[in-house]
């Protein structure tokens, strides 16, 4: 079992629901301070987006953030260097599209990520069927490969994905890309479907933009991922302090 999963299972054992905010790396020069602030505010792990030119699973907010970050010259190397230089105090999970790792070289990428303190990776356009090589590379570097499931996932796939995913299972609450839908949608059904075959921690994402939605979602799951809503505040000028307040408000709602 990968270290990340050990950590996240322990978190669940402790009775705490996981709060996982998403940040676009490089979107502002002080983005790592935002990450640190979020951890301060109560985040249990952090998703770090690596910007890609063609973010097929992302809505306008994250697209915008990716464009800004790319325009600023962000690369895998620059992100890894920044992460390696910071001590952020929570598990780091990168999220990006497969082409970047493919182009970088799968073993080289996973090695570089591991060296920079990353312990998990979400690659939304990498299907289970195409993931063998990447998973092998991640295995060499103790990086957890996290798969998504969706409301459209079939029972047979739920079983295979829930078995394959490491660290946690990312349950899309809705049939939508990031930032486009609001609320927990089909979350309950999706989480149940995962649990039917696996006891991996299961977090709900896509559509969680308010503390109330986060609270509702965690009633039935092990955690939530907060993406576009948070990125939006940063795009409109939030400071790290604002981020801490933002995350803290989610923390309070979840812990209630």
């Amino acid at each position, binding site marked *: 079992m990968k270290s990340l999963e050990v950590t996240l299972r322990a978190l669940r054992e402790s009775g705490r629901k996981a709060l996982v905010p998403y940040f676009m790396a490089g979107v502002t020069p002080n983005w790592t301070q935002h990450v640190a602030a979020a951890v301060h505010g109560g985040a249990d792990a952090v998703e770090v987006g690596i910007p*890609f*030119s*063609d*973010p*097929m*699973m*992302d*809505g*306008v907010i994250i*697209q915008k953030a990716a*464009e800004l970050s*790319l325009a600023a010259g962000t*690369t*895998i190397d620059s992100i890894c260097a920044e992460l390696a230089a910071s001590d952020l105090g929570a598990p780091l999970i990168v999220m990006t*599209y*497969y*082409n*970047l790792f*493919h*182009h*970088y070289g799968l073993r080289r990428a996973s090695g570089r990520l591991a060296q920079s303190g990353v312990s998990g990776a979400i690659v*939304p*356009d*990498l*299907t*289970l*069927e*195409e993931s063998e090589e990447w998973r092998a590379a991640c295995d060499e570097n103790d990086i957890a490969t996290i*798969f*998504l*499931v*969706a*409301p*459209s*996932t*079939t029972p047979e*796939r739920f079983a295979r*994905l829930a078995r394959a995913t490491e660290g946690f299972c990312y349950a*899309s609450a*809705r*049939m*939508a*890309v990031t930032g*486009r*839908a609001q609320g927990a949608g089909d979350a309950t059904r999706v989480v149940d479907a995962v649990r039917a075959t696996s006891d991996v921690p299961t977090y709900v994402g896509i559509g969680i933009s308010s503390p109330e939605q986060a609270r509702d979602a965690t009633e039935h799951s092990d955690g939530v991922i907060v993406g576009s809503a948070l990125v939006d505040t940063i795009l409109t000028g939030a400071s790290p302090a604002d981020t801490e307040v933002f995350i803290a408000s989610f923390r309070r709602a979840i812990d209630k």
Partner: protein
Amino acid sequence: MSQPPVFMGAPSSTGRFGDFGGRFVPEALMPACLELEAAFIDAWSDPVFIDEYHSVLHEFAGRSTPVTYLGRFSKLFGVEVYAKREDLAHTGSHKINNVVGQTLLTRRMGKTRVIAETGAGQHGVATATAAARLGLACTVYMGELDTHRQELNVFRMELLGSTVVPVTSGSKTLKDAVNEAMREWVSCVEDTHYCLGSVMGPHPFPWMVREFQSIIGREAEEQLTARGVGVPDVVVACVGGGSNAAGIFAGFANSSARLVGVEAAGGAAVSNGSPGVLHGMKSMLIQSEHGQIEEAHSISAGLDYPGIGPEHAFLAASGRAEYVGIGDEDVLVALQTLSQLEGIIPALESAHAVAWIMQEAGKAIPRGSTVLLNLSGRGDKDVAQVLDILRGRE
């Protein structure tokens, strides 16, 4: 005894052509891809479906398209050129072959709506057309820049009852329209089919679209045989995503014909690209040193795509087909040359293939060779643009 390899058969069960192809999509779309794969395999072996597909192409879209011997052009360049006239198909290009197949399949799957991406608008117009005929709702995603450049095609789609959505993300052109169509598909996959416009995207699209386009090559092969020309020495087609090329190559994949795909020099995914993953497929892509996808640049909106269909990447890697790049200037000259010598104004896309023949006749194409040119579309859509360019120089 080793068998010679068979080209352009079905891909592997995971949709691979050699190392290329596959399926790289969000999990949310996997069931739709699987459903589509099953539906296509089922339909494509059902004589009733195949009959309907052929009869719609025949009675609605005007197939078969003729093969025209280009007498004056051939004489001038010293090679014998036959043009497969996809410009005469309904809506003005080969795009209709694919959308007829996909919309019939949409109905068969019980879906009531299609979405599509489009660059210049040819695939969008074709999809809007086929959707209107079956009474399917249709939404077309088009880069905002392209909606301005191709305002008339936008209106054409609207006349046909479709909704056109300008895409404002990224470079606001074709590749962003594909991204956006994929994103939208996620949220409507239950009742909506994504009618992809070329031999690209996740499995089964590259295979399915090639199959729907292979009628071009099958017809051409029969027509040349009937005329006593037989197998041509060279088969040449322009390549954007690669559907018209795949369609005509399919008729000659296991013949002695040399297969040549002509890309826009500013979007030559095979010559200038490297392997990568985009829009659901592994293929050759134009990308930066960091793996960011670059914008293609071409005078022809239909070739303005940084990738190529995965089967072409395989045909290139295996040496079965060659891919070359042609620049905008040569394309303009070719368009004018063919117009004046033969009374056929080709699409700017198709003019790339014409330009390659003009460039290589007597060189890479020995004098007297027979060449089958896929004239993928008519140039009417491009006349305003060419006028602006040529006037701008006066």
